[in-house]
């Protein structure tokens, strides 16, 4: 799957798509593929403060539990309620299934994240280990 170029990626396999000071966050195709069938997504409440690089939630597949890390600092404004009943949407459409939206505290933080091309390279290198 090609990684969309309209967003940035973290080394912990989240994507973040910003528009002004608002951003949507999800997990990458590589992350969903590694996890397998996703059955549970636990997200913070609206109003929660996220700190870049810190854990904000959990995604679980049949086999595994994986922490989610915030790619940027900000305040949660909305969570994707569909994922409570249809977590498998993350497998089907990882880059379309946003988990939550946040107001960015410092949009400049995104510059430190990976581009689609760099993320793809990072994933390939990780697989090579």
């Amino acid at each position, binding site marked *: 799957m090609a990684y969309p170029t309209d967003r940035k990626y973290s080394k912990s396999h989240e994507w973040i798509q910003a528009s002004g000071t608002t951003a949507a966050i999800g997990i990458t195709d590589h992350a969903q593929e590694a996890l*397998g*069938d996703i*059955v*549970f997504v636990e997200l913070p409440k609206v109003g929660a403060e996220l700190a870049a690089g810190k854990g904000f939630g*959990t995604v*679980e*597949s*049949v*086999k595994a*539990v994986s922490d989610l890390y915030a790619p940027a600092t900000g305040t949660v404004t909305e969570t994707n309620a569909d994922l409570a009943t249809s977590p498998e949407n993350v*497998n089907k459409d990882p880059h379309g299934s946003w988990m939550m939206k946040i107001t960015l505290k410092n949009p400049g933080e995104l510059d430190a994240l990976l581009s689609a091309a760099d993320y793809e390279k990072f994933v390939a290198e990780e697989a090579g280990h």
Partner: protein
Amino acid sequence: MRKTALNAVHRQMGAKMVDFNGWDMPVEYPASIGGGIINEHMAVRTGVGIFDVSHMGDIRLAGPQALAAVQHISMNDASRLAIGQAQYSALLYPQGTFVDDVIVHRLGEEEYLLVINAGTREKDFNWVRDNTRQFDCAVENLSDDFTQIAIQGPKGVDTLQKLTDADLSAVKFYWITRGTVCGLKNILIARTGYTAEDGFEIYIPADEATSARAWNEILSAGKEFGIVPCGLGARNTLRLEGKLPLYGHEISDTINVWEAGLDRFCKMEKPEFIGRAALEKAKAEGVTRTLVGLEMVERGIARDGYKVLDSGGREIGYVTSGSPAPFLKKNIALAYVPLEFAAVGTTVKVEIRGQGVGAQVVPTPFYKRPKK
């Protein structure tokens, strides 16, 4: 890392591989060929799936005192086995705790085959050899001689029947036969498995070419039944729904037979076997904890090792195996709890990321296959 003879086949099929007790094994196959733990699990419940279980070990005991040797080292009563019959049993330490659980097959008048777990192969073989020296009986480790393939599910019989001259309809559950399979002569065919479903396990020569050919022929034969290759992920969820114990989880060297609830496979009327005296004492003293089935009633998934709490938040036990149950579509777990929390309907909590999440003791097995 150790590899089965089918390793290259799994990799070719795009399986996700994991280190399982030092073995490089498929955990699941790609969705593009019908895989994924949920799909694989459902295939076995409703159709047929095949598993490479060659990492399991095999110990052969043969000789005039083979039965006496098997009786001494195992808790079930092997004297009840007819030739061609198998039974679930366990090897015990003198303390009444588990060396491993095993399937004992009676292959001949004086010949038995113990099928043991991958992670305990060397330990088991050494245990069996060291504890049967006083018997006139040869003990052989045949673990590397076989590729073991499990064909599991209600359509397993129809799939395998296409490839063998043996009359599978005449083989009852936990019985064995021999026949030509995929052109290979005198193959051991057992109606056994670890999925709580009907199915077979076949033991074929462990060379790569033969193993790959048989694997592919089974996949072709099962195509009309929607056969799916299955990995260790589905193997675990299938056995959990059926409450089949896994070594290192429900049974171990610190858990005894009574606690594990395996009473019906332990024949105390046998005059002697390793562990018997300790079990007699343990029974007289009474057990304090027992294995129960839990179903999550609040949102959350119990996982192996999570704490079980009483409704007031006090730690009372732990989860041995926990997972979403793909067929039952519930989040289930097996857990050790004190006897006073073991009654069906008892409300407990499972600690998930620091939070007590509501669960209830439910009857087990969680899943029982429908009677034909």
